[in-house]
């Protein structure tokens, strides 16, 4: 009796799925899922309204430690294109793909766009050991902080979308080219505004700003974390405070999701300023796209460094 009921229920579920799957989601636009809001923003610049784009990780959370939700699995399962930052930035990427089981994104499928292709990577470890903290096997994956890299990302997205949707290839390429042109103009402006702070000593919380500081010519004298991903220890802070005093470092660059308590403690001891920057579109909320995000970062730094420049050590 129970077997019959269970069989009927199972058959009903199967019928429901066979009727509705593919019908409900058979939309004409490409369903694109990006792992971060920043990639989603750049993809939007490239494809405008010809795709339906969704981002996975919340901009308010640490990209390394994001925990995918059932909604993310659902999104990836029905997606046509999956855009990710490659390398090992999103440690949760493979478990998410496994959970979604969408065959389009397995292996090096063309429907999966790795935007890191062609990026010059920094800080590639010569040996792999957790004694060095949460290091990344392929090099520092926070390359999106350098706006020059955003141009490569846009080109990669255009190329990837074009291979999935060849009919719109010219449209994607043109938009990517336009975006890169606008970015070029902004980069010139940002470099000019940062030119007065070349070589200025700064501290970062995590090693997530290496590309950004290289582009704009700051000098990183240390990190709040003793080693990547390792929470700060008292011993490390004593040494860092001394270093800040010796080298007259001007600012601690941190991201919004990183704790404030330790940087504040350092600031109290040294007078260094703390500045919250972001690599995720949507954090803060008025950073609506990549250009406004970077504009916000540059503006904040310009404001703080201008005040700090004249500070007597």
């Amino acid at each position: 009796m129970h077997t019959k009921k269970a069989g009927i229920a199972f058959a009903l579920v199967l019928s429901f799925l066979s009727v509705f799957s593919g019908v409900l989601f058979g939309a004409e636009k490409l369903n694109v899922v990006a792992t971060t809001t920043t990639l989603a923003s750049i993809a939007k610049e490239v494809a405008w309204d010809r795709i339906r784009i969704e981002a996975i990780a919340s901009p308010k959370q640490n990209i390394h430690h994001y925990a995918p939700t059932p909604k993310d699995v659902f999104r990836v399962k029905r997606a046509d294109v999956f855009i990710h930052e490659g390398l090992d930035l999103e440690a949760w990427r493979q478990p998410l793909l496994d959970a979604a089981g969408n065959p389009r994104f397995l292996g090096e499928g063309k429907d999966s766009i790795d935007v890191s292709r062609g990026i010059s990577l920094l800080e590639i470890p010569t040996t792999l050991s957790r004694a060095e903290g949460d290091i990344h096997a392929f090099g520092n994956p926070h390359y999106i902080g350098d706006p020059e890299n955003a141009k490569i990302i846009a080109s990669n997205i255009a190329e990837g979308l074009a291979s999935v949707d060849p009919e719109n290839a010219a449209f994607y390429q043109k938009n990517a080219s336009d975006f890169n042109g606008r970015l070029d103009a902004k980069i010139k402006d940002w470099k000019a505004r940062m030119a007065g702070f070349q070589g200025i000593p700064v501290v970062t919380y995590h090693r997530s700003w290496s590309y950004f500081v290289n582009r704009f010519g700051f000098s990183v004298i240390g990190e709040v974390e003793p080693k990547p991903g390792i929470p700060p220890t008292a011993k490390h802070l004593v040494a860092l405070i001394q270093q800040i005093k010796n080298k007259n470092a001007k600012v601690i660059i941190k991201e919004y999701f990183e704790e404030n308590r330790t940087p504040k403690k350092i600031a109290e001891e040294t007078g260094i300023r703390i500045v919250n920057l972001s690599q995720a579109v949507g954090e803060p909320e008025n950073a609506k796209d990549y250009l406004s995000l970077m504009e916000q970062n540059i503006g904040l730094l310009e404001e703080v460094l201008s005040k700090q420049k004249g500070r007597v050590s």
Partner: protein
Amino acid sequence: MRLYPWIFFLGLFLFISTHAQAADPQIEILQNNMSQLQQAVQSLRNTMSDLKMTIENQNEVIRQQSIQISGLQKGPTIQSGSVPPPAAPKANAGFNPDIGVVGTVQAKLTQNKSDTEGNNAIALKEFEVNLGQVVDPYSRFDATLTFNDALEDQNVEVEEAYYTRWGLPLGFTGQIGKFRADIGKTNLLHAHALPTADYPLVIQNFFGEEGLASSGLRLKNNIPNPWDLPVEVSGEILRGNNGSSFAGVSRRPIFNTHLKTFFEPSADTNLELGWTTMFGTVNPSLTIDAGDGTTTEWTRPEGTDKYGVKLYGGDATFNWFLPEGKQVTWQNEIYFQNRSDSANSTNATPWGLYSLIEYKLSPRFKPGVRFDYVNPLEVSGQQGTTSVSPYLIFWQSEYADVKLQYSHTVYAGGEKTDNAAFFVVDFMAGNHKHAVQ
């Protein structure tokens, strides 16, 4: 009279004309000089522009070199997607399975006087070896082998080993092998991934000390719906020899389904709701009177009363993400059973729940508390076992943590209590990734 002005103007005109003609060579010289000066200025401008460009190019070269130097100081620079980085081959070692290990050592102080496993002792609770790799373009495997140092039965156990096949018709994903049953939230977790030192009492009592893992088959899929809601359903047929609520007869399978959905009430919160339904066989022992005053307990090898155990459960997990990486989690699970073997097990409707709330207040610390109640399988009546367990997790790093827990338990009947303190160290190395729940 009227001729004088004309003569005056004529004279003035002749005078100016004569002087103007006399000044022409000087103007020409001046004009030439001006022209030369303009050319010189233009030439200087061009030189300046060239010099500026040279300086900019030099700056770019210097910047690129400083990147190279910085890269060499912290590791070499390489272009992604071109030559593999020096260390990468080790991390991506061809076709071999990814390997990770996790150790859990537990020390426990308790009022319980019996000299059984874990009482007033330090023990290697578990040492897991995790293996996993893609098998072919359609599938992968995952396995967890567990070694333990239990007093009575030091052994190696296959905690999980299953094969996943993606892309089945209608978008189903199939899994076959031994796996942790898709029951609520906590049963899916391995011991080291728990926030607490032990599984909630209702999980221990209904499914076993480490929860329910069994050989079987699982199919899962998302149910399309007009509201664009993620609704995931999974159905499992499990071998019936596991789980303390069931017959313990292999040939009598356990049927399990789990349905879950997920909401985001705001940008900073989410809520996951789930429902579990299980059917299994009961197998009450029979007391046989030999006629000579002796009795024998006998259990039918094939079990009795198919689907005599009906188990239902609900789970709700609420997450609230706060600034600076802080997070509040409130997790609840409730289970109740309807059993046909009440005459022997003495409890026809056992039920239990737990509620856990925790607050991640910094990258290092997460305090929490778990409340347990279970009206267990073995005892009849309205009174059940209650327990309160405050705990604290300290992360030395992402790969090593320490858990401290105190548990105050009042057992069913209320006559017996226990106070226990746990000290747990978890450590992991290698490639260890948790499946998305």
